[in-house]
């Protein structure tokens, strides 16, 4: 495929004509001395360095911009109060409920509402005026699940108690004032029952899209949540809660015939298009021992337990990278 003749036609043309052979040609260069490089010049296991900038939006309670290569994501978190009486399926937690009660407030009352949008034109294949792509829908489902399964946000900090209970009123800012009033109306003096909740609207917008969306989106959400200060005394509540979980995506493509394959870390759009198998690992190293919070692999049979293990290791290294970036 990669004969000198065909290589003489500009590599971009080659890429356009037959992207897949082009990718492979790059991964197995003609002479063995040169190390295999990807079409984007990176080593197979080399990631793009993320750049993170927080509190970039004035109106959101928390926000972050994450740039990972040409994938750029803005995440804005906005808190809104919802009164328990306004929650149709609300059910006062009865003392009888044991600790492992079936009641999961965050999920049952939708207190965390992630929404992912791939802006028109962030990549050539996103056209205006079409319903949300499968990718967008899949992403928001995965994000939603991870938000809950990882218990990233402490639900107890989203509860709002009547005046007496909440001694936080000291350092209210103006926004708090109206919140407080709103709550007073319904605050019943004696009981300490929850009167309202904060609902966190987490909006993620892809400005430009060049592969590895889940990874970048999640990083943005983390950064934004850490940055979130709700107008209440527990203003930095989220800080200690935030666990840093870099997500790591590997793609491999089985070459026709021989069973040889490559693992491409943090793939770009071209690569994602051409690879079959995807592995995503979510790790949390904040504790003394590494905790895995999610493994998701589909689309092929090459990655077995051993490879998965290797990838967890790679994920850990990536964790450091992003942790550093967020700090």
């Amino acid at each position, binding site marked *: 495929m990669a004969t000198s003749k065909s290589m003489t036609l500009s590599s971009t043309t080659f890429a356009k004509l037959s992207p897949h052979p082009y990718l492979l040609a790059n991964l197995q260069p003609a002479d063995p001395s040169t190390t295999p490089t990807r079409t984007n010049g990176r080593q197979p296991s080399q990631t793009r360095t993320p750049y993170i900038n927080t509190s970039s939006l004035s109106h959101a309670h928390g926000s972050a911009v994450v740039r990972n290569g040409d994938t750029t994501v803005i995440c804005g978190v906005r808190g809104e109060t919802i009164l328990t*009486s*306004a929650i*149709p*399926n609300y*059910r*006062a937690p009865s003392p009888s409920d044991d600790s492992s009660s079936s009641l999961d407030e965050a999920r049952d009352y939708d207190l965390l509402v992630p929404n992912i949008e791939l802006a028109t034109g962030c990549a050539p294949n996103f056209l205006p005026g079409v319903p949300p792509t499968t990718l967008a829908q899949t992403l928001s489902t995965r994000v939603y699940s991870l938000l809950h399964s990882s218990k990233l946000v402490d639900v107890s900090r989203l509860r709002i108690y009547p005046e007496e209970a909440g001694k936080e009123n000291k350092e209210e800012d103006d926004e708090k004032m109206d919140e407080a009033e709103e709550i007073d109306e319904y605050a019943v003096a004696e009981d300490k029952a929850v009167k309202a909740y904060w609902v966190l609207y987490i909006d993620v917008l892809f400005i430009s899209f060049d592969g590895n969306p889940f990874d970048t989106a999640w990083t943005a959400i983390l950064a934004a949540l850490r940055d979130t200060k709700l107008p209440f005394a527990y203003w930095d509540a989220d800080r200690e809660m935030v666990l840093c979980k870099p997500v790591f995506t590997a793609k491999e493509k089985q070459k026709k015939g021989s069973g040889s394959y490559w693992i491409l870390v943090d793939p770009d759009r071209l690569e994602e298009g051409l690879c079959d198998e995807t592995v995503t690992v979510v790790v949390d190293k904040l504790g003394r021992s590494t905790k895995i919070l999610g493994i998701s692999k589909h689309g092929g049979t090459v990655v077995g337990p051993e490879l998965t293990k290797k990838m967890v290791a790679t994920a850990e290294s990536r964790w450091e990278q992003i942790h550093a970036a967020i700090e």
Partner: protein
Amino acid sequence: MPREAEPSQNEKDFILKAVREGHRLDGRALDQFRQLDLKFGDQYGIADVTLGKTRILTKVTAEVTVPYTDRPFDGIFTITTELSPMASPAFEVNRPTETEVLLSRLLEKTVRRSNALDTESLCLVAGQKCWSIRVDLHVLSHDGNLIDASCLAVVAALRHFRKPDTSMEGDTLTVYTPAEREPVPLSWLHSPFCITFSFFGTISIGEDGEEKDIWLLDTTLLEEQLRVSSCTISMNKHGEICQVAKPGGAPVEAVTVLQCSSLALQKVKDLSDFVDQKLAEDSKHRNKGGLLAELSAENAR
């Protein structure tokens, strides 16, 4: 968009000729229904209807929600009919065909607008909380007469359904889980059914050349593709018409429509009895020592 199957000219000619002489491919009489069967699920509110090779599955679900602002004292009651490629590749996901629109409209008029379900009984806290009862209808296999089969499935499922029990202490509403309290049935007012007549033109009878309309009941898909027009009459067994729809197509004598409507009453009575009997059988085998209670207890462990 995938092509809908078109019967060949030979089939068209033959079937029309046969029908004119009073014959159908499967040897049924012109006004005869195919084998009808109705099964209920282990969970409440699941009805599985088979009519010949047509198969419909309906599931009822209840959810507490906020009532519409313009109807604070009513609950919410919706019937969703989305035909999937399972029934035929011609049905694409979220791209309603005409068949689908007419079907959901007929169910809407027959079951919802005729107040078969008492929506006021679904109100929990006026203007704040109410039950939202939703029926999801799935066409698993489409061999004609979707309307009659679907209507029967919807009615059966709703009558089989139980919604969670609730109580009000002061201004706090408690919705009990099935484990806490046995769910309660909906307040059901009457059971309407659809009978669809398919017309196949006219034949002249007697030497005076008087024209008579030919019609079939419970048509197969092939027969439906060849009919010149159809008329769906919805009634309950008390002879109350809930809806009549003849959406255009070739004209038929007014007299014929009247004859159809009185025959429809007979058929509706049969269907009505059929569903009553099936429901009775189901509740009998359920009440063998509170089956549900046992199961829930098992789950707890």
